[in-house]
């Protein structure tokens, strides 16, 4: 059983990677379109259609290292929510962000790619494999 798992797991991982590569080949446009649907449904109410957020309450998604920097840290925010006293570009934001672990790996990769490439942002895409990896680590950490 254990051996079977060891065999299947890398295979599944390989297939996921292939699938993710296929997604990339199928075009950023499709990812962006899917990401926008997720964004509108899950993120827009607080972060606004422009990604500008709400002064003092909900942080902006533009011009911030929280979005444009380390992808693993960004994925963790979506998985676990956010409730820390931090300043972003000198401003503090008081609302608590709800965790969104129910999003699939694909939905999370799509929406984060959308956010990192919209509102004037020009950062690299987030892949399904990257989300999967962070989620697995996150689960091991007991979150």
């Amino acid at each position, binding site marked *: 059983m254990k051996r079977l798992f060891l065999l299947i797991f890398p295979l599944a991982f390989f297939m996921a990677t292939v699938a993710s590569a296929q997604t990339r080949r199928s075009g950023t446009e499709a990812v962006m379109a899917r990401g926008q*649907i*997720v964004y*509108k*449904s*899950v993120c*827009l*109410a*607080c972060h*606004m*259609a*422009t990604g*500008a*957020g*709400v*002064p003092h*309450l*909900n942080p*902006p998604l533009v011009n911030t290292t929280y979005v444009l920097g380390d992808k693993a840290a960004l994925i963790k925010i979506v998985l676990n929510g956010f*409730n820390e*006293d931090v300043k972003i570009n000198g401003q503090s934001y*008081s*609302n*608590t962000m*709800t*965790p*969104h*672990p*129910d*999003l*699939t790996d694909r*939905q999370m990769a799509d929406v984060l790619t959308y956010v990192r490439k919209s509102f004037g942002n020009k950062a690299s895409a987030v892949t399904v494999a990257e989300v999967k990896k962070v989620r697995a680590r996150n689960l091991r950490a007991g979150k």
Partner: protein
Amino acid sequence: MKMKKASVFLLSAYASAGLILFNACKSPDKGSTAANDSTATAIKPTTSSAGLTVPSGFSAVVLAEKLKGPRHLAVTPQGDIYVKQSEDNGDGIVVLHDDGGKATVKSHFGNYGGTGIAIKNGYLYATSNSDIYRYKLDDKNQVINPATPETVVSGLTNKRMHNSKSIVLDNDGNIYVNIGAYSNICEEYDKDKKGCPVLNDAAGIWQFKADKLNQKQSDGVKYATGLRNVVGLDWNQQDNQLFVMQHGRDALHDLFPSLYSTKQSADLPSECMYALKKGDDAGWPYVYYDWIQKKLMQGPEYGGDGKKEADAKYLRPAMGYPGHFAPDGLLFYTGSQFPEKYKNGAFIAFHGSWNRAPEPQEGYCVVFQPFKDGKSDGQYEIFADGFAGPKKTPDGALHRPCGLAQGPDGSIYVTDDQGGSLYKISYKK
């Protein structure tokens, strides 16, 4: 907490059912004028004044600009204006003098941000997000020692969210302070639905002795509970009673997409005016008020389905306003300058919404709520509008009304914590 389902819902387009007057401060008008619900009517004709539209006969001037996040304010009989600002480092309070048409800055002091400020019985009271301080005033209502305030209460619950502390005093030596819930709807603190623990140390109005120093939260009385977050509040001198404006919950659609459309989630729940008595429970997080159905509803986190009514034991609002308008200022008008109908009625400053997206944002205005014999009476009216300018969004608005106060001549003052302006609105026959 019921987590948002991963399945993604396409946004439906909902036609707005209501009228939009002046492209602004207006809610869907269901054509009803039930006793304790209110739909807006415009007062015509209006005049444009200092970028605002105000009723005919009124005029607005910008008394001061570039204030630093001005929140609530208090005005003395001598025409000095104490404005609580969001800044620390000596800018916590700025003192202006109204020279008629413009204000000059007299001084500034206070190393703490915050919202609340009030004058009573020879003292200026002001709040940070966790403490209440007071300053003795001289016979001209000037602060004697701005650098050394006395601490009335310290260590009030401050967990970032809804942490502003608004204050008002009664005529019996008590001070009332809002301690807002550090949560939208308690979902993260009451997963087993055994009762929301946030109600123990927040989500209510606390009462303290105004002249007793160095009190802790536990020294106060939880005067009223089940209030999610109150920013605007005032003491009604006719009723000798506390009135507060509650900011209603967010995200009905986001959390329960199968029960609430995005349009319903924009309009609901109501922002509520409550007339409070000691011991009242307004029901957060278990219930919310639906101003369209005019019913107190069971919240979806606690078995509600958008149709089930709440237990009648919870306090009904004195008046319901459309969702997410964000009432940050409340003022009962006791002056004589304005026409008779304004006397003893309420002005409400609606800071403006953010949680109505993808529907258009609303609010960003000051409304007048008529009162008769100490009870809210009929429809509210848009009083001052146009604060936002061309972009009525939280980040795009040029100005957002926040605090309200009445001057010695019966004019009213409005702060704008977005653009930093201070407005004065007056009436001339």
